[in-house]
């Protein structure tokens, strides 16, 4: 199994969710996140005093998938999240040892 994590622009969330659903993903986790990449943050001005805000709001989407689906799913997310402008985010995957469905106790791919 793989855990795929995507950090994307908040307003792309709905499109990514829809794309994942049509791909057949049954569940996902979304958290609000903040951070920066190459684009860095933005500037705010209060009575002339400028503040650089390093951390930009993002959403983090996490999906557990079977190994075979991983690469294709990553492509689906990237396609749905891309705007072509700076600050679009990142997607990565890591191997997962085990997963358990809490209600039934099923383990491994059955739990997905």
């Amino acid at each position, binding site marked *: 199994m793989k855990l795929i994590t995507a950090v994307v622009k908040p307003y792309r969330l709905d499109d990514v969710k829809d794309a994942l659903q049509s791909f057949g993903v049954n569940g996902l986790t979304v958290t609000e996140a903040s951070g920066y990449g190459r684009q860095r943050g933005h500037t*705010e*001005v*209060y*009575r*002339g*005093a*400028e*503040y650089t805000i390093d951390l930009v709001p993002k959403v983090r989407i996490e999906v557990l998938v079977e190994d075979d689906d991983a690469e294709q799913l990553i492509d689906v997310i990237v396609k749905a999240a891309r705007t072509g402008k700076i600050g679009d985010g990142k997607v990565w995957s890591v191997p997962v040892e085990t997963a358990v469905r809490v209600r039934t106790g099923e383990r491994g791919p059955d739990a997905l």
Partner: protein
Amino acid sequence: MPVGLSAASTVSLAADKLDTGNTTFMIISAALVMVMTPGLAFFYGGMVRVKSVLNMLMMSFISLGVVTILWVLYGFSLTFGTDAGGFIGKGDYLGLSGIGLTELWPGYTIPIYVFAVFQLMFAVITPALISGALADRVKFTAWTLFITLWVTVVYFPVAHWVWGAGGWLFELGVIDFAGGTAVHINAGAAALGAILVLGKRIGFKKDPMRPHNLPLVMLGAGLLWFGWFGFNAGSWLGVKDGVAGVAFFNTQIATAAAMLGWLAFERIRHGSFTTLGAASGAVAGLVAITPACGAVSPMGAIAVGVIAGVLCAWAVGLKYRFGYDDSLDVIGVHLVGGLTGSLLIGLFASGGVQSDVKGLFYGGGFDQLGKQAIGAFSVLGYSFVASYLLAKIVDLVIGFRATADEETAGVDQAFHAETAYDFSAVGGSLGRTPATGPVLPIGEENGSGTTENQAEQKKVDA
């Protein structure tokens, strides 16, 4: 504010009978001025960081408590009692005792009680104005002691100079309709004196100190704007001759113009129209028109407003250049705005409203401008020196400043045992549990069971 006897002749009012219209107007105006202090508390409170918003609110609210009592005991006497040498009132109204219910304020048609409570609200808000410069870093007891000394040594005498019959600036003919000198220059200069004693906040110019709640700032500015109509129009102490109405309208005009001026300056200089700029511009306009609202025409009010808005927007940047920490720009807005309004009377006074005095642009020459400058700078000088010394005394006696530890953790926790907001999500409360369990009324303890239950009940109560 033309409250003294000698110059009350500017407009002849029938002075011997209580007038119901005027009295009602003044009672409502007093209430309007009162709401400016909570408004100011919100205006300032939104501008500080999360850890000191309650302290900021309390610095204003404590003034409502302390100054009210002082005013009754001796403040009204020192300010509006019989003149002694042009500098202070005698103690003829100590404890506000022996005043008849319908006894009129000399020369006017409103009871002394109504006049005294209206003037009280000015004495309350003036020290509160200073608090913005001292944000995040003073001991609450020291602040309370400071304003007690400050109103006694600075506000009461200065208000007497400007508005008391026989006060030396009043007799000189300085025009200050509602407090450009006695309130705003006074508070701004005091702020400068106090912060030179106190020093900068930890992290000034290094850490970001952005306002934590701009909607609160806008709410505060709105309440100030609303209350200011009582502050300015009410200062004529009556409505019969139409001056109060002009003062009311000029207040609106200059405030609008100053807000636009500040926003335009900001857009050109920094690229955006900010809410903080709109709120600050409005307050700068209110400050500047305060002394001038009975002296200028509506077109003059536009000029006063625009000039004040742009000048104050520029002036709030000076603290970074000179390195003094006027935290919420009391100097940049109140001192600069107060000076602007007071001096511009010398140029824009059109005659024909509160008096026939004309400024330079209306053919009056430099005469009034000179008087205005004497008024503005004598108040500035006295207030600055006296406030510096008072802050020094407070610092030597009980220590003015919070410890570095208290300041870093936040003065809310240090002095009020509270924090403003509960940020816990999903029903938690950030690990807070009652230290000893809630104190329940006797008799209810039996049914409450475990400590957990008690904690639950406390949450519901809160």
